[in-house]
């Protein structure tokens, strides 16, 4: 037979286990969100390097063109788009703060917002790269 105190102890321990398992795993979800956000950043940086390479090729072409050539203006606009996309990346990095000291209820919406912003920047960079590539082929 188990005495009363032992029953109380076992019941308390069991309740603790139940609550621990039921509690949301905020840390794991935040970590996953942080990693996926930064992975988008890393991918966008690689694309940005390609974009930059295409941009330099366009600049070399532009310097060889007559100053009144219509293509010059087309290249200038493409380069402007690239510059904006690149500055968007650096602006994102300047304002990004690792959420290490944030409570989960603050970190989650913060990271979701950061992820949306860097996804948009990745799209901007990709589109500027493709526009530049397409222009080079013409």
């Amino acid at each position, binding site marked *: 037979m188990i005495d009363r105190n032992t029953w109380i102890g076992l019941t308390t321990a069991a309740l603790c286990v139940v609550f621990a398992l039921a509690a949301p795993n905020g840390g794991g979800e935040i970590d996953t969100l942080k990693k996926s956000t930064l992975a988008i950043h*890393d991918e966008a940086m*690689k694309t940005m390097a390609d974009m930059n390479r295409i941009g330099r090729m366009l600049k070399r072409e532009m310097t060889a063109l007559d100053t009144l050539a219509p293509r010059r203006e087309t290249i200038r606009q493409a380069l402007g788009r690239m510059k904006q996309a690149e500055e968007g990346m650096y602006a994102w*990095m300047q304002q*990004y703060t690792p959420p290490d000291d944030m409570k989960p209820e603050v970190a989650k919406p913060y990271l979701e917002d950061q992820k949306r912003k860097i996804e948009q920047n990745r799209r901007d960079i990709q589109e500027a790269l493709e526009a530049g590539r397409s222009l080079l082929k013409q």
Partner: protein
Amino acid sequence: MMKYLLFAGVLAAVFNACMQPSGPRILPILGERDVVNGDTVYPSIPDFAFVDQDSQIITNATFKDKIYVADFFFIHCPTICPKVKANGLRIYAKYKNDERLGMLSHSIDVKNDTVAALRRHAEKLGIDAKKWHLVTGDHDAIYSIADDYFSVATENPDLPGGFDHSGRIILVDKNRHVRSFCDGTDAKDVDRFMVDIDALLAEQFPGK
């Protein structure tokens, strides 16, 4: 029987010792070579001019008669760069007083990583500008030279290479040739890289 075994063991050890190459290990010169007028020409790092955290102009002449390690970073990089800097600090600590080796880190964020920002960053890292130059300069010049370094320091020479934000640290010899590189985010690969640095120092500064 034991005598014969012992004799065989000694013979094997002597044979093995004779087969070991003598002298320093020679690192290969990386990159695709050309033959020009009968001479083999290796890729080399082109002329450059940037400005460091102490507002000093840094060119190839800064590393005259030295070998150096190079990488590309930006201060607000949230992922790769902090790991590369941590491993860079290990290289700095080991070779801090060795004048034969220099260190050169190029910021690719020329807008935000100004000379003042680089100085603050250097102070935070606790590094001496005479040893480790954090440089900025013309945006296209930095990206272009990044491509020059990375097109040689690549895992697959058959594929077109270029700067790819990978955290690579690159070793350059006295003749501007790339001789080794490592993944700057991987501490074990950096350990291997430092063995390569020692090998290049032994090769290029014999007897010192």
